[in-house]
């Protein structure tokens, strides 16, 4: 017994010493030679519904980096990137984040796809003081509840996205008083529906939420949810289903006449419309994060051509956001004239930026980008072989971002000081 006790103390001491040595090394490594490439750690979830978003996200990054490198890089330094897979598991996400920081000595991180992974990673890279930009995952917890100065968000967060979508739904069906919701049962879905409830109560006095369905992420059979919702006879349904789940839901709800009888809004973005093909329900409402048909400005359409030349397909919002993230980082480094993390963070705060989704800034308070949210109504278009949107609304982030006072209020509860 005694021997074991001594041994475990020894092991404990040894591990503390080695960890602190590794950490010290990591800190020493920061001021490297100025001609070495700037290294980006790209970490995504190549699994389940996230696989596809992650893949096109990486393509967006690749196109941006190739362009920048062809023009001589940033501050005369080339850009290099390493892609890692979280496998959709928080412990792997943490391990890979550590490995990218400690062993690969990356200067900046981009990713991940799942909000759950993002929250797990945030603890780690904040500890090592490495800046991460999120270009797909969008839980509001990353900028508000669990705020970290080492995190920047260029995706409309769950709060902004749901507020904007709720306003669109209300504008389209102003008389609706009774609602149902259906959302995937995890961080993202819970946050979106909470914001929906908050906003619909502001917009519609005396609103009733009849029923809330929480299918698990990756559900294949929505039949029982569909009949349960229809039995409640709601005036409209708000949903944050997305990806493959939304494809399944749509196909299963159509034979019930669901889309003819209930106004419905969900994340009908480009990949979902593409997968649904002729099954995409015309006249149903969608929200999304900014792809070519949502925001056909000249810069965006130029990117579409580049992306099509590179991959043969149209880019979705995930590619757009990743492309924007790289150029935002470039602008910040050039403004700071160094890649030193604290200086880049300082440069990024409040810096005006113009990307594929037009102008936005990173709010200094919580590092939330004032990025736009888009909504529309599914319709055919003679210019494309798939359905897109009509009646498109582009809501600038400033109109839906959580007010600073409200952010500070939440911080008081969660113990964030800033």
């Amino acid at each position, binding site marked *: 017994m005694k021997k074991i006790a001594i041994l475990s103390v020894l092991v404990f001491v040894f591990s503390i010493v080695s960890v602190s040595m590794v950490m010290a090394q990591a800190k020493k490594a920061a001021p490297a030679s100025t001609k070495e490439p700037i290294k980006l750690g790209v970490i995504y979830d190549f699994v*389940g*519904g996230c696989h596809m978003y992650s893949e096109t996200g990486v393509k967006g990054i690749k196109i941006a980096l190739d362009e920048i490198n062809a023009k001589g890089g940033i501050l005369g330094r080339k850009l290099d990137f390493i892609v890692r897979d979280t496998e959709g598991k928080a412990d792997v996400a943490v391990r890979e984040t550590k490995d990218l920081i400690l062993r690969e000595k990356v200067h900046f991180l981009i990713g991940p796809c799942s909000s759950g992974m993002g929250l797990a990673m945030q603890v780690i890279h904040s500890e090592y003081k490495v800046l991460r930009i999120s270009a797909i995952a969008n839980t509001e917890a990353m900028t508000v509840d669990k705020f970290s100065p080492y995190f920047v968000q260029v995706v409309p967060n769950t709060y902004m996205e749901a507020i904007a979508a709720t306003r669109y739904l209300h504008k389209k069906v102003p008389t609706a008083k009774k609602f149902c919701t259906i959302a995937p049962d995890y961080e993202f879905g819970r946050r979106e529906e909470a914001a929906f409830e908050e906003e619909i109560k502001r917009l519609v006095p005396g609103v009733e939420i009849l029923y809330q369905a*929480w299918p698990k992420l990756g559900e294949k059979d929505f039949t*029982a949810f569909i009949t*349960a919702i229809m039995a409640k006879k709601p005036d409209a349904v708000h949903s944050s289903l997305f990806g493959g789940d939304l494809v399944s839901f749509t*196909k299963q709800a159509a034979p019930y006449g669901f889309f003819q009888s209930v106004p419905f809004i969900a994340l009908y973005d480009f990949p979902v419309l593409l997968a649904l093909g002729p099954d995409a329900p015309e006249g149903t409402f969608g929200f999304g994060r900014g792809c070519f048909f949502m925001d056909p400005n000249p810069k965006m359409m130029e990117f579409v051509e580049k992306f099509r030349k590179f991959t043969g397909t149209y880019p979705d919002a995930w590619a757009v956001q990743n492309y924007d993230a790289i150029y935002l980082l470039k602008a910040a480094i050039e403004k700071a004239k160094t890649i030193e993390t604290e200086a880049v963070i300082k440069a990024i705060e409040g810096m005006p930026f113009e990307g594929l989704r037009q102008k936005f800034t990173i709010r200094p308070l919580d590092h939330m980008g004032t990025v736009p949210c888009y909504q529309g109504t599914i319709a055919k278009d003679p210019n494309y072989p798939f359905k897109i949107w009509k009646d498109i609304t582009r809501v600038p982030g400033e109109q839906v971002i959580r007010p600073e006072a409200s952010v500070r209020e939440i911080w008081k509860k969660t113990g964030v000081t800033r």
Partner: protein
Amino acid sequence: MSFDVLFSQFMSGIARAALLFLVASGLSLTFGVLRVLNFAHGSLYMLGAFLSYSIWKFLLMPVLGFYLAAIIAALIMGAVGILIEYVLLRRLYARGWPEQLLATYAIVLIIMDLVKWAWGGEFLSIPRPKPFTGAVLLFGFPFPSYNFFVILLGLGLLVFLWWLIYKTRFGDIIRAAAHDREMVSALGIPIPWLFTWIFVLGAFIAGLSGAVTAPFGSVALGMDIEIIIECFAVVVIGGMGSLPGTLLGSFIVGEVYAFGIMLKPELAIAFIFMVMAVVLIIRPWGIFGRPER
């Protein structure tokens, strides 16, 4: 709550039960005779779905395309079954369950990466085939006709398996082998041959049910693990290796889920596993199962 609401929820449960029965019957059959808990059954199902998508795309036939694709995909999965049984499983019958689970889990990982490599992560989807595109009215409430097709197919499979197991000589041998494989072998019946065909039948059913799911929702990574967990609940409740047990288990899981969703959606999945826990406490071998000898 009015009758039509309850009825339509009940029918949703039946549709889900039919789908579960399709998949779980193959799992239960393999377990009943081979005594191998095939964790990769869900992976064969997923591969069947992806294959049927690609074959459907390749065939480009408006009406028959889907049905042909489903049958071809199921046949291919049968062939994959021969390969898996011959190369791997046959070496594991004498080993313990932990090794069997590990080996079949290895197949899960291999097929997962194979699918990722061959099809990527896109959401694929096949439109509902004619003539099952619309809905029929049941007591004034619409019910998707494709769900009817799935229910009919489930019933068809039930009748076929019942006939095969209880009415044919092959079935006599199967039941005898499930009971006492040494004795059957002593009677001069080649057990390895029998086991290969049972596994092939299981793989064929898995492939077919995967193909049938394709027009129902989306074909995507992750559908393998999702289905296998629910199938385990089905066979644990109904009884491992029992055909009536699988039927009853599917019915219970389907209906508990459907009414759970209506009454307390947050707990719908928990309800299924609560039922499973109760069955495990009262009858650890399942409602129709036999205690292990």
